[in-house]
């Protein structure tokens, strides 16, 4: 089901947590709300869920205004950051809860509930844990039980608050893939909150970048990476070299192939992999020295320093595939030429 947020604002005292948010999420998407802590992403998720009320604005789910519906009437499934499993109930009873609290006329029979719960537990591959208590489960298992519990009421929308935040790095990796596949199979409109850009890019089909209670950009992961709308998004998504054209001597950047002819701002962002380096000839007048490098698996991250008479020193980072770097036969202290293939201009 689609979600439409119109003009949502929320203040905590004098602090504006959300500032006139307008957002449309088409049916079936898996959306990441991405932003630094305190940007309002969790508040937005809780407003969609009805766990918190907005000061103004409307929440529409599949075209129907649900702003004044209580959380229990809103038809959403919510997965909490620390799972919030009922610790006095077994895994089975946790998942069955949403079905058991339905009004008598809508409540399925016990047989139906049993079947459905087991089906859900099989979906999350944890049926063998059905009679355990939450405290006896690992973090990853709790996470999946929380998901099964939220899915039991067949929500129109699935909302997840930092779904991988409390997990070990290795478990997190597996669960991301798993969530993506699950979403592919179920195709329920889902929104999750994260502060980890890598996670957002890897899992989501749509990413919404938030900062200071405003939406900075919305788009597919590749959109956002390749065409950042502003300096904040560019900096927040992936690594970038930042050059301020006002206090930087720009000659060396022009030499490196940065076209200043149709410059659109004062700040230039260059992704590390958009910088190509070559060993300079011995008598070159290049200003850039290779300082150090680190292995990042398949890639090499190269630390360069621009020294020299014209302008202050600057650090530049470049990335290139391992084998390509080896072929260059570079040593620390070597002078290098660089070439900038692509840059983003911002004001």
């Amino acid at each position, binding site marked *: 089901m689609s979600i439409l947020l119109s003009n949502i604002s929320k203040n905590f005292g004098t602090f504006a947590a959300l500032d006139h948010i307008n957002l449309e999420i088409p049916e079936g998407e898996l959306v990441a709300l991405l932003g630094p802590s305190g940007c309002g992403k969790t508040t937005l998720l809780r407003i969609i869920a009805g766990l*918190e009320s907005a000061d103004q604005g409307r929440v529409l789910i599949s075209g129907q205004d649900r702003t004044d519906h209580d959380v229990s009437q809103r038809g959403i499934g919510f997965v909490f950051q620390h799972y919030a499993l009922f610790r006095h109930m077994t895994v089975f009873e946790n998942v069955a809860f949403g079905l058991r609290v339905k009004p008598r006329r809508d409540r399925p029979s016990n047989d139906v509930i049993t079947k459905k719960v087991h089906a859900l537990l099989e979906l999350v591959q944890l049926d063998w844990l059905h009679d355990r208590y939450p405290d006896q489960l690992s973090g990853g298992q709790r996470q999946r039980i929380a998901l099964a519990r939220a899915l039991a009421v067949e929500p129109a929308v699935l909302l997840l608050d930092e779904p991988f935040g409390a997990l070990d790095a290795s478990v997190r990796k597996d669960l991301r893939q798993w969530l993506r596949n699950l979403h592919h199979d179920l195709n329920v409109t889902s929104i999750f909150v994260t502060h980890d850009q890598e996670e957002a890019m890897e899992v989501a089909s749509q990413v919404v970048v938030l900062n200071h209670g405003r939406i900075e950009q919305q788009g597919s992961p590749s959109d956002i990476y390749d065409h950042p709308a502003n300096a904040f998004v560019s900096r927040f998504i992936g690594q970038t070299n930042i050059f301020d054209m006002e206090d930087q001597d720009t000659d060396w950047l022009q030499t490196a192939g940065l076209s200043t002819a149709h410059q659109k701002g004062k700040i230039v962002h260059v992704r590390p992999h958009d910088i190509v380096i070559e060993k300079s000839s011995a008598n070159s007048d290049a200003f850039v020295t290779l300082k150090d490098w680190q292995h990042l698996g398949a890639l090499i991250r190269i630390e360069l320093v621009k020294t020299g008479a014209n302008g202050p020193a600057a650090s530049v980072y470049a990335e290139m595939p391992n084998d390509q770097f080896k072929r260059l036969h570079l040593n620390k202290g070597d002078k290098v030429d660089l070439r900038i293939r692509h840059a983003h201009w911002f004001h």
Partner: protein
Amino acid sequence: MSAVTQPMNPAKLVARQQLALQDADWVRWSLIAIAVSFIGLFICLPLGLVIVKALSKGVEAYWAALSEPDTLAAIRLTLLTALITVPLNTVFGVAAAWAITRFEFKGKSLLTTLIDLPFSVSPVISGLIFVLLFGAEGWFGDWLIAHDVKIIFAASGIILATVFITFPFVARQLIPLMQEMGSQEEEAALSLGASGWKTFCAVTLPNIKWALLYGVLLCNARAMGEFGAVSVVSGHIRGLTNTLPLHVEVNYNEYNIVGAFAGASILAGLAVVTLVLKTVLEWQQAKR
């Protein structure tokens, strides 16, 4: 008894005010009304009554009742009892907490349970056991009479019974705290060359001081206010073996209402001071 004597962080009550899911207004206000009237009926009313009754015949009668020699003797005995009981049980509490929380040994949980024992014994029985030991017909009765030593119907019996009743208070406060703290800081001090005593004074004591004071406070309140156990061993000899609570009882039974409530007002004042200090200490512990 555990729950009552454990400090609770009052800051948490303040912090926890905004809940996402509020109860309906009528539910909230009726529950608040029930709770407040319940507290008002069972707590505020008795507190107010002590003051009203004590001053019912005027301030002068109140002072006269307080300055009566028997009342003064009762106050003196009560203070003496607390003065002996509290330090004894404090030293014990610290020693027991140190042994239990800093070492592993067999029977540790049994020892912890035994320390709590006096809390689960009726005050009257607490008095009775000392009568059985030291009374005229008791185990040491003949020996005590032969040597002209008086314990039952004397101050020493009152002090003994009070020590028994207030036995667990300090240990009770320190054991959970020191358990939670662990011994890393002390080990660090020892590894830096501090002596055992120095380590205790410079590292342990500053960490446990609020809990220790809390335990001392509760121990003192009970020591000064104990009635049942003391009543059994005292013999109610006016001016000699009456503590303040016993003096209140005697006056009340003799229909000396102003005298009874004058004594009661001092004890109620003690309770109020205890509550105030308790709250202060809870805030201090919460800060830590």
